[in-house]
């Protein structure tokens, strides 16, 4: 490095901004995970439906989202909808795009989990006279989630990292804060290093949090103590 010295003091002096940005990233990710998981699970049920039209519609949604970049999805939701007359704030647009995005990935993951539930269990539930919705609720859902839990965790962490892209439409999350701090302090490399470290910490926290939720939700795992 030709005489360049890393200087973090100016950047770290802006710490309240970083805290705000991190909080925004956490809010955005948490909301997107909860809503996206709901949509994704419903969509997975839709894809397994006997009604061709419903399963085709869900399949089209999943393929459309999984084969286009998130950045373009965000642009379509934000600029596209506003040009079509639906003015929505940047945060809402970002949230909608993230939910649609993670919903599609969750759908594929949950479908794999549901397909892995043993047929005999479903048949047994049907013999007990459970309706289809009851079969899903009491028999399929939890084992399916348990089977794909690691994949879901990875996907949700990827979503949290991908929320950085929403800075491009002006959502004041962590990456946008980094951009602001670097233009104020002229310490671009240092700003992005600080933010990278925060993201790494956030992703560890998220993995830990999701693991803890798994321990609570999947009681079987806790009792056996063997299934990590």
């Amino acid at each position: 490095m030709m005489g360049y010295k890393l200087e973090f003091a100016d950047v770290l002096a802006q710490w309240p901004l970083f805290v705000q940005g991190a909080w925004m990233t956490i809010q955005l990710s948490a909301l997107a995970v909860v809503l996206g998981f709901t949509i994704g699970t419903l969509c997975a049920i839709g894809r397994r439906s006997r009604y061709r039209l419903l399963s085709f519609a869900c399949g089209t949604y999943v393929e459309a989202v999984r084969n286009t970049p998130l950045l373009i999805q965000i642009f379509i939701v934000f600029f596209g909808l506003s040009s079509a007359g639906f003015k929505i704030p940047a945060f809402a647009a970002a949230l909608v795009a993230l939910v649609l995005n993670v919903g599609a990935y969750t759908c594929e993951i949950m479908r794999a989990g549901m397909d892995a539930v043993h047929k005999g269990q479903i048949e047994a539930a049907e013999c007990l006279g459970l309706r289809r919705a009851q079969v899903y609720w009491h028999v399929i859902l939890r084992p399916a989630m348990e089977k794909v839990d690691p994949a879901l965790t990875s996907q949700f962490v990827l979503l949290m990292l991908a929320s950085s892209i929403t800075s491009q439409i002006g959502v004041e999350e962590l990456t946008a804060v980094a951009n602001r701090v670097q233009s104020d302090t002229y310490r671009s490399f240092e700003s992005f290093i600080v933010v990278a470290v925060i993201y790494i910490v956030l992703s560890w926290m998220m993995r830990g949090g999701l693991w803890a939720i798994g321990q609570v939700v999947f009681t079987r795992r806790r009792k056996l103590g063997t299934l990590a």
Partner: protein
Amino acid sequence: MGGAFNVNHFNFMLTGAVWTVGLSLIAFAGGGLLGFAIALARVSRNRLLRWPATVYVQLVQGTPLLIVMFLCYFGLAMLGLNLPAIVAAGLSMTIYVGAYAGEIWRGCIQSVPRTQWEAAECLALRRWQRMRLVILPQAARIATPPTVGLMVQVVKNTSLASIVGFVELTRAGQLVNNSIVAPLLVYMLVAGIYFALCFPLSWWSRKLEVRLNFAHRRQPDLAFAPA
């Protein structure tokens, strides 16, 4: 409004798409080499190889690609190198793909049954020979579907290079939109071109996966067949 959408705009976007493909190939070639090295280091018995590779993967997988891009972009500038945007974009994509490909391939190497290692050892092959002649050919077959799936991610993620100023498909779309202001039309079209690039790969990946699963599933199914 700067006029209506016309053929020139579309051609400009297709040129951008060519650059998207180019950047994807660079990312995949560079990231593939790096990822292969990472995968081998991660399964190595030597701690001095295993640890740095693990730390590398942890760091990259915990950081958004966008931040990696900014770091490369400003980092290269800080070194006093005034390089075109494609260098920063290519470098950051390589770093990113290296970590993800490395993890995928490590999993594939480790999913080759232990007995294959033992059998190879009984044939008096040295460790590197075991790896090269016995394990890697089998791991490569397991690795094909997820690797093709990763290629889809790579193509999509090159869209972030637009943010550091590299004119690929997304940036081309933004430029067209700046001149004619028809975001819904332009971005839908951009999305359509991305879909045309990615969907065949997704489809191929799924097809490979189904074929592989049949070979794997047959035995367990028989074993658990109801009496």
